[in-house]
């Protein structure tokens, strides 16, 4: 019964009902990231205007963690300022790479705090980060 805590209700919910899935036009940058150890893949597009994220659209395949992470990211990022999303990405990365030792900042993370349990499973950390790293990359390329 160790890791069922990893599969938070919220993660399962996003996995079963992904938000904002599908690749949409217009977009400023598109990236494709792969997690070679497990084959999880994501294609992500961002549309940015005036410092604001207008859309994050994606298509991917993979485990519940990687797919739910993309869905949560879509919800958090769309409509927020780029700057704001970058601090969420940083905090998310810090949390996930913290081997379960990091106290998450719920204020910053919002729903993404549900992934705290994943940090204890080194092999799954990359799943959770896949979409978020793709997002960071896409934003960097969009400017």
């Amino acid at each position: 019964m160790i890791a069922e805590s990893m599969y938070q209700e919220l993660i399962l919910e996003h996995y079963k009902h992904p938000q904002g899935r599908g690749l949409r036009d217009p977009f400023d940058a598109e990236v494709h990231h792969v997690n070679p150890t497990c084959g999880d893949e994501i294609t992500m597009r961002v549309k940015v205007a005036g410092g604001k994220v207008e859309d994050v659209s994606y298509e991917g395949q993979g485990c519940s963690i990687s797919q739910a992470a993309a869905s949560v990211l879509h919800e958090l990022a769309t409509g927020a300022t780029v700057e704001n999303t970058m601090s969420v990405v940083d905090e998310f990365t810090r949390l996930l790479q913290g081997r379960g030792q990091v106290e998450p900042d719920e204020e910053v993370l919002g729903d993404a705090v549900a992934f705290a349990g994943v940090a204890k499973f080194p092999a799954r950390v990359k799943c959770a980060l896949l979409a978020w790293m793709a997002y960071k990359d896409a934003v960097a390329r969009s400017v």
Partner: protein
Amino acid sequence: MTFDVDLIRKDFPVLGRELPGDRPLIYLDSGNSSQKPTQVIETMRDHLTWHYSNVGRALHALGSESTEAYEAARDKVAAFIGAPSRDEVIFTKNASEGLNLVAYAFQNGTDRFRVGPGDEIVISEMEHHSNIVPWQLLAERTGATLRWFPVTDEGRLDLTDLDELVNERTKIVSVAHQSNVLGTVNSVSPILARARSVGALMMLDASQSVPHQPVDVTELGVDFIAFTGHKMLGPSGIGVLWGRRELLDEMPPFLGGGEMIEAVWMDHSTYAPVPHKFEAGTPPIVEAIGLGAAVDYLNAVGMDAIKAHEKELIQYALDALTEVPTLRVIGPRTAISRGGTVSFTLDGIHPHDVGQILDDVFGIAVRVGHHCARPLHLRFGIPATTRASLYLYNTTAEIDALVRGLHHVQKVFG
């Protein structure tokens, strides 16, 4: 010795281990790497503690003890696979090195060990990356063409175009003896007959067969086989390449260094006879000795008995798994010409999630992903599978636990 799985399990301390959270370990990942019996571990420990020294080069008491133990391991392996000569057994670090060694021979050699534009190399779509990438690199670096057998929906080699695929331009055919994903045991003779008729060499990736069934290279009739210690109760860091003496003699050196030479001048060298020609530098001494102990263990249990036990288990598993809704087996669904490895998908649930819940909730170790056989997964249109792979120490009770675990996984994602 009659086969007694309970007795066998006693030799593997880890099988009695409890994982954190009171989960007894259920190890169904031997196709990835097997556990080690106490006999192997203690042989290594004893050697490291009391007899260790470098081999070959040292004339003193410890040097002789190490050399004799190391070379005795070679004798054991040679006998185990029915090699006509002990000198045909080359110790490598793993199966991958053995496969690369042969592939590099075709880049660096002459005559029949030389490929270039117009020459062809044939593999199959069910290969492990270790039997794909070395040949891709060879083809890329020499201009030769890489071709492959397709795989049928049932997970067998599709030999329909055998005569076209293996032709006068073919220099070598290298295929898995047993698939690490499908469990399929490939029938060697039709391919070998065709290879012989066009003058091509033939290699088997025996990584998944040598641990699980009696393998006799003389009976098989092929030119090379590669396998790996850690999948057959031996330690990591040791593998075996077997090849026909006259071919090994003809092949160019692979790695250069100490022990593979006859004489060295600054501007040229002459090389030792096989097997030493291909064992550059200090070999995996204690690892070879550990592999020798593993071979002793397998012989004591009996490879026929192991094969029979696994056949029973896989029959049981294939039956049991049909009860799990939406479960789709990738590979042969009957226990004929297949080993104790079964890979499958569950609708709407990613193998990573399957594996994680099996492990976290029940202590069941399976492998999830593409199992280093991505092209095979692409062929079946799936990114990944969940794989249970069985060995001499597994039981039907463990298969029951797997089935229960899968039902639970479906509940979580239902």
